[in-house]
Every structure is written in C-alpha cells, then in structure tokens.
C-alpha cells in the first residue's frame, strides 16, 4: 500500500533524463505498471526520473513513410489520434483495449513496452506491425525491431542506461484489413490471449499476413508459420482455420488461475481465426 522511499526528479530535457538513467535512475512515465508494484513493495527503485511530461517524448507524427510515436504518448492519445486511426488503425484499436479509461489516460506506449508484461496488449500489435523502437542512451541511439526487443517475461533488449525514445510503425497500405481480438482476464483486464492481425489482398489472394500474439506465453511473438499459411490463399473458412491452428505451435504456453495451458492454446486458435476473419472482412 505504501511505497518505499526514493529520490525523484522530473526531467526537464531528454538529455537530462538520459543522464539520470545512465546514473541508475529508473524512468517513470505514466507509472501504470511501476507504481502499483512500488505500492506492493514488489519494486523498490532508489531513484526515479520522471519522463512523463517531457514534450520531447510526447508526439505522434508522420514522416518518412512511417508513424513516429514518442515514448510518452499515452494510450488514450494513440487510441484517439486521427493520425493513428487513419494511418495505423491496428495500433489505435489495440490501444482501446488496454486497461480502462483512467489507465489509458496515464499509461504510455514506451512504459508499456519497456515493462514487457507477457499479457500486455500493445506487443501483439507491435509484433504484427513489425514496429521498430528507437532506444537512446548516453552513447547514442540504436533501433531494434519488436521481434528482437521482447526477449522474455519482463525482459527486453534494453541495456542498462537505455530508454525507449520512440516507436516507429509503418503506414498501413490502403486496403489492408486489421483486427485485434482479445479475451480479457475479467479481474485485471489483461489479455488471456490477444491476437493482432494485418491482412492485405491482391488479386483475390492474401498477399500479406502479419499475426502478433500476446498473453499466450512468456513473451509476445509473431506467428510466422500461420502467416505463411495464409499468404497466397483466398481466405476460405478452412484456410483460416488451418492457419489459426498454427498460431500456438511450438510455444511454451502459460497456465494460471484464469486459464490453463490447454484452454489458452485453444483460445489462441479461436481468437486467431476470429481476428483473421475480421481483418479479411475489413481488407479490400
């Protein structure tokens, strides 16, 4: 209920934040993941650097054929941004499924990604979007793909001293159909299974399919076999079902109070089929 004491500073500039992080401070953005754990004393950072109000991190803009989203953009901003809704609807749709209104008002895309919760919603979409994350440290910047970034449960490619500066997602091509389908854990709202889909068609065949999965195992992933099974197909019910069946293949599936591994595996197939069908119906 009561966090342990810590030192706090609000970063005035991004450089200031980076300096602090290099010195061992933990970044605090919306705090939606970190603060509950601090209150339970599961997390006891000694120093926090508040990056939540850094203007340099709070933007959504289009450039170079991609959307650039600052790490401190809130879920609500992503959900309601006309730019994201128009140019990368999978991301705004997914954002609308995160937590609840109050959480979406405070929580940030960078914070969610850095936390790498295995049941968070964003990673499914970011995997399907083949998003790139710009990581910044005092020694410079590097760009890491979503596939490489999410390493394991709560584990990411972030090195000590590094923070997420920006998320880059592609502009969705005209006619691409997208969908995020999720079964909620009814107490916490986290995904028991969440499936993000992007499908493009050309000449009556599926020309591109991307499937991002969350909730199923220790980390989010792209179901590449299932994607391949769809590509080149017309998208019949049987083809959808066959592809969906590949989504939980070769994955170490989690089990908890709310869903056994068997049930999760089954749900992954059901929700994948639903997401594929929904995305297909929205594709042109």
């Amino acid at each position, binding site marked *: 209920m009561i966090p342990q004491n810590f030192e706090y500073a609000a970063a005035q500039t991004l450089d200031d934040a980076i300096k602090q992080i290099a010195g061992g401070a*933990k970044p605090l953005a919306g705090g939606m*993941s*970190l603060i509950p*754990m601090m209150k*339970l*004393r*599961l*997390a*006891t*950072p000694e120093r926090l650097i508040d990056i939540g109000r850094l203007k340099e991190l709070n933007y959504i803009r289009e450039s170079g054929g991609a959307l650039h989203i600052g790490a401190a953009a809130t879920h609500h901003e992503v959900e309601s941004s006309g730019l994201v809704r128009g140019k990368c609807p999978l991301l705004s749709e997914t954002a609308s499924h995160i937590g609840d209104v109050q959480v979406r008002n405070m929580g940030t895309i960078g914070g969610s990604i*850095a*936390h*790498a919760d*295995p*049941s968070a919603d964003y990673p499914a979409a970011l995997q399907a979007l083949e998003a790139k994350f710009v990581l910044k440290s005092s020694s410079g910047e590097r760009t890491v793909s979503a596939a490489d970034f999410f390493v*394991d*449960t*709560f*584990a*990411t490619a972030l090195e000590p001293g590094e923070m997420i500066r920006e998320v880059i997602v592609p502009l969705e091509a005209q006619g691409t159909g997208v969908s995020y389908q999720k079964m909620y*854990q009814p107490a*916490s709202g*986290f995904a028991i299974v969440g499936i993000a889909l992007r499908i493009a068609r050309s000449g009556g065949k599926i020309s591109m399919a991307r499937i991002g999965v969350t909730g199923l*195992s*220790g980390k989010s992933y792209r179901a590449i076999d299932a994607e391949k099974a769809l590509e080149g197909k017309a998208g019949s019910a049987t083809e959808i079902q066959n592809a969906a069946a590949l989504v939980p293949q070769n994955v*170490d599936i*989690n*089990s*908890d*109070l*709310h869903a056994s591994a068997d049930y999760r595996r089954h749900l992954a197939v059901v929700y994948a089929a639903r997401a594929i069908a929904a995305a297909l119906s929205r594709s042109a």
Partner: protein
Amino acid sequence: MKISGTHRLPFPPEESYAKLQDPELLAQTIPGCESLEKIGEDEYKMKMKMALAAVSGAFEGKIRIADKNPPESFRLIVEGAGKIGFVRGEGLLKFSAAGDATEVTYDGDVQVGGTIAAVGQRLIDATSKTMIRKFFEKIAG
C-alpha cells in the same frame, strides 16, 4: 503449482550431472544468486536478489540436494524467503543422453506465499519458467 520442462545441455550426462551440483558454478548461474555457502553435506545457504524488470526482492534461503542417483537423477529442494514473500520448490531432475548432449527434464512443485502469491498469480508460471530457462542457458555456457 506443478512445474515441468526439458532443457538441453551440451555436455554428456556425467558432466551435466556434476555441473548441476557444483556450488561454484551454481553460484554463477542461479539468476540473482549473490552468495552460496555450504552448511552441510549437499546443503547450501543462499542469498539472492531476484530482479525481473521492475520487480525485485532480496531472498535468503537454502538449497538441498537429495536422492542422488548419478548420473541419472537427483532431487533439488530450494527454499527462500524475503519481504515480498517466500518460495519453496522441490523437483526431480532426470538426465538422459542425447548424442553428445544431455536432456535434462525437471518435474516438480513450486509453492509461493506472501505478496507474490497474492498478486502474482498471472505471472508465477511465466516467471519461474523464465528463471529456469536462464539458469540452464547459463549452465550451457
């Protein structure tokens, strides 16, 4: 909670068996292990700092090895307690040759208590698997 899995170590069974009981190696490979001190035959006192993203906590506990049957199997009993709760795990490790390597399968039971039991349900499975995987990866070198 039941927990089981299989990992591959790039050594023959005898060597794998020995490595998994080598306190110096264990001290370096158990995630978060800060010290491992022998307190009896096949019994060690351990201090560890678990850190998984934002979650962190200091634990003190014991590791015990029993039912030794080299190089086929032994039983591992781990206990630890800290401010955020406690963990007790017991499992049977079995070793079988797979070419030049060894397949190590484990089958056991993990009990947790305190805050981690009350709020961590969603994550206990994934977290314990992750820690075990990290451990084997480190052993494998």
